[in-house]
């Protein structure tokens, strides 16, 4: 009895807090997606009172709206493409770095990992802002790039407020999430495996493709999940760097809540986003699981 | 009345029965060992005695008092943990003082007893050190001192020597025996190492699959194993399938396939019973030629293989029609003993009462 008392005294407060400030808000949001928008923004009442008494005032309108105009599905697809490109580029950049760290002397490894994490601890907005400076028309970076393009007769290109700027910055903010799980995986590889492969006649490329790469697949799956999912909901990056052409689904959600004040539709979009992310992650996990069991 | 009476203790974890109806009496002043492979339930039993776990059924009586309702901190039982569990944020002296502080003894008395205790384990100059700064053997001694400073009725030791290297382990075994004699406290010792169990204990309970297979003195366990598991687990043993053909009063004749008739001591089996003959390799005589003696089984064969171990050589001899018998030859002869080579003809012999027939 006393055992159970302790258990509830210790786990009770955090559980209660998270129920009130996470579970209930999430449920309210789900409910909100079936409600009508209020006259001045916000939400219309759940219950309507009229001559026949009180009845529920719910609707599927928000979801119907989502499927009625292709522009929303298009925005979803566009967000998905941005996320895929970001994830792929992160993988391409993170892999050599993670491998380099994993293969360097053990006394430097912690420092090298710390160097990957440090920029990630600087404020999110500052990291976006930094690219705003770098990609701005007056920056040395832009000037150098346009000078280079000028050699080939390509006219000066604008970098800021384009999808390119958005994806570049997404890669920048998400890169550490790919490096860390990859490194955690690669670091555990037994160096003797590579010696064994070499001993058995494998050259450097074969050692990489036949030994290192297949063994690192779990790290790749983890990194892909960590990079991909958060990108789907990001709004600050396209908001600051994307101009009108670079917007993503997050911007639309933000707009529905803060500008258009159509909360039911915003909630519906959020739920569609969550479901979409869950389907993709679940599918990928299933694929990865089958892949792994197939290997054995 | 025994110091600790354990009655029909059962402990299940889900579908798995870790301790399956164990009963035993542990006498005051005894060095008692629970021996068995990992997963045999010995550690679970120890944790229940300490009070960190409770049985689903059965009871444990200490000095005749039921332990079930007594919290671990109230039991006059202390434990030396496998990891030693020395508090890393306290000095050696603070670690040893911990149980005394819990009993709210005065500062002066605590100081005096800690000093005495440090002296007992020869760590007087290490009192101000932290456990992290000590060697493995020193940590072990601190753990012992801490568990003994309160003079418990019962000391539980959970594989306390497992983390030490071989040399240190042998030295600590001697220290443990002496310590136990000096303090006169009852020890319950858990180990999976049969040599350690044989060397240290007054009595051993061999456990397997949550049950006690045999409970006896070390020499009885070694010489007269009760069943196949004990014979196989303790030391090395030839285990040969056999059937009783003639059962006499004291002797009997066993029929062994591929070998023929073998004389053995009759532990009380009847004709036609099937079982195994358990025969220790060191009880089998081996030489190129052996003069036959009375009451001996005598066979001619060939060396099938051998292992040179330094102090002894183990020969695997093929006798009869493909029966392998291990025999042990000490390399103690003056000069370099001649080692029999594979294929050499040899003779082996053992007294009828050297082996044990085990039913079933």
């Amino acid at each position, binding site marked *: 009895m006393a055992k159970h008392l302790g*258990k509830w005294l*210790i*786990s009770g407060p*955090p*559980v209660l*807090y*998270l*129920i009130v*400030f*996470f579970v209930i*808000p999430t449920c*309210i949001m789900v409910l909100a997606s079936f409600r009508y928008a209020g006259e001045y923004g*916000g*939400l219309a009442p759940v219950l309507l009172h009229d001559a026949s008494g009180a009845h529920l005032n719910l609707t599927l309108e928000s979801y119907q709206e989502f499927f009625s105009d292709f522009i929303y599905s298009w925005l979803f697809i566009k967000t998905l493409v941005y996320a895929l490109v970001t994830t792929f580029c992160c993988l391409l950049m993170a892999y*050599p*770095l993670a*491998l*380099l760290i994993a293969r360097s002397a053990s006394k430097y490894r*912690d420092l090298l*990992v710390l160097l*990957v994490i*440090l920029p990630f*601890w*600087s*404020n*999110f*907005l*500052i990291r976006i*802002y*930094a*690219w705003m*400076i*770098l990609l*701005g028309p*007056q920056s*040395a970076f832009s000037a150098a790039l346009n000078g280079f393009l000028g050699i080939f007769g390509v006219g000066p290109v604008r970098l800021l407020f384009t999808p390119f700027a958005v994806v570049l910055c997404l890669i920048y903010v998400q*890169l550490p999430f790919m490096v*860390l799980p990859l490194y*955690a995986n690669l670091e555990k590889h037994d160096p003797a495996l590579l010696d064994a492969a070499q001993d058995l006649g494998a050259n*450097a490329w074969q050692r990489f493709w036949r030994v290192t790469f297949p063994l690192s697949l779990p790290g790749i799956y983890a990194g892909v999940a960590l990079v991909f*999912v958060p990108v789907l*909901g990001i709004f600050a990056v396209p908001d600051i760097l994307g101009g009108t052409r670079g917007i993503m689904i997050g911007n639309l959600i933000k707009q529905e809540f*803060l500008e258009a004040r159509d909360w039911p539709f*915003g*909630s519906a979009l959020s739920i569609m986003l*969550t479901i979409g992310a869950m389907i993709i992650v679940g599918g990928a996990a299933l694929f990865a699981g089958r892949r792994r069991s197939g290997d054995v | 009345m025994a110091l600790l009476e354990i009655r029909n203790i059962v402990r299940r974890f889900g579908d798995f029965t870790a301790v399956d109806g164990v009963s035993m009496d542990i006498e005051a002043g005894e060095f008692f060992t629970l021996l068995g492979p990992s997963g045999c339930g010995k550690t679970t039993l120890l944790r229940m005695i*300490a*009070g*960190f776990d409770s049985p689903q059924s059965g009871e444990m009586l200490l000095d005749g008092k039921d332990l079930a309702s007594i*919290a*671990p*901190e109230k039991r006059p039982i202390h*434990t030396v*943990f*496998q990891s030693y*569990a020395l*508090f890393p944020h306290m000095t050696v002296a603070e670690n040893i003082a*911990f*149980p005394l502080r*819990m009993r709210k003894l005065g500062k002066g008395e605590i100081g005096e007893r800690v000093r005495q205790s440090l002296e007992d384990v020869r760590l007087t100059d290490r009192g101000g050190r932290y456990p992290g700064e000590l060697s493995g053997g020193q940590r072990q001694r601190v753990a012992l001192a801490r568990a003994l400073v309160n003079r418990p009725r019962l000391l539980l030791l959970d594989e306390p020597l497992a983390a030490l290297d071989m040399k240190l382990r042998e030295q600590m075994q001697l220290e443990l025996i002496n310590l136990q004699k000096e303090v006169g406290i009852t020890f319950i010792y858990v180990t999976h190492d049969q040599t350690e169990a044989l060397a240290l204990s007054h009595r051993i309970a061999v456990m397997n699959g949550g049950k006690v297979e045999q409970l006896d003195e070390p020499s009885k366990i070694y010489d007269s194993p009760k069943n196949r598991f004990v014979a196989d687990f303790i030391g090395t043993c030839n285990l040969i399938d056999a059937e009783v053909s003639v059962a006499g009063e004291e002797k009997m004749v066993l029929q062994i396939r591929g070998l023929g008739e073998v004389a053995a001591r009759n532990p009380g089996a009847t004709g036609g019973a099937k079982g195994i003959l358990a025969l220790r390799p060191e009880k089998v005589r081996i030489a190129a030629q052996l003069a036959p003696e009375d009451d001996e089984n005598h066979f001619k064969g060939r060396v099938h293989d051998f292992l040179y171990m330094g102090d002894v050589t183990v020969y695997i001899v093929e006798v009869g029609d493909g029966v392998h018998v291990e025999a042990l030859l000490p390399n103690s002869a003056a000069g370099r003993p001649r080692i029999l080579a594979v294929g050499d003809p040899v003779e082996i012999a053992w007294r009828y009462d050297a082996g044990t027939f085990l039913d079933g």
Partner: protein
Amino acid sequence: MSKKLLAASGIAVYAFLYLPLVVVVAYSFNNSKLNAEWVGFTWHWYQVLLSDDTMLKAAGNSLLIALTASLASTVLGTMAGYALYRYKLKLLPVLVMAPLAIPEILVGVSLLIFFVAINLTLGLLSIMLSHIAFCVGFVAIVVRSRLSGMDESLPEAARDLGATPFQAFRLVTLPLIAPGIIAGALLAFTLSIDDFVITFFTAGVGASTLPLQIYSMIKIAVTPEVNAISTLLMLLTLFLIVVASRLSPDSIRGR
């Protein structure tokens, strides 16, 4: 992969990671209104910053929110971390992890709807409550990782030697996990003071924080004052993270 190619690409990626931040810091000392060419060294933008009342007010809010949120979430998070480690609860791990796993924007908008539904005026209080909600999980993870690094038999040894459960916790467990708790608190402070997305939705018009202030400055007119405040914020974060990782290296790095 050849060693040189690997090293070269690694250095290139490090450059990619640091170049933008170096540029921000450098321009904060540039004696020019534009983030373009280097004109000369100046402290001017830091002076501007120190006389900017809105910015100072936002900084004050950020500090107040971060202090309150880190304190409350440390208490709740330590309890959650201990419960995660000690008891086999089915619901708790999901409750603790879920807010960290789903896109931040969803936490932000659902809290916005919630606060409006319960008629809580958006402002400092709503921001604090939201920050506590997402910091609890981080603290819980750090504390639990510290606990699982502890030899399980230590609190048992204390009980064995005569300590009550409470004494065992106070004299053995708590001192041993204290560095984890402090690291968790610093982590919560950092996350709170840096948070933009959730704050953006739960702040309303009443209260502004540093990230919100930076956001509106970026959106309206970029001045090197943003570089100055960014540099200071980076220094603060760097300091907190170094302290936290000293205390609990594994939990920060191996997250």
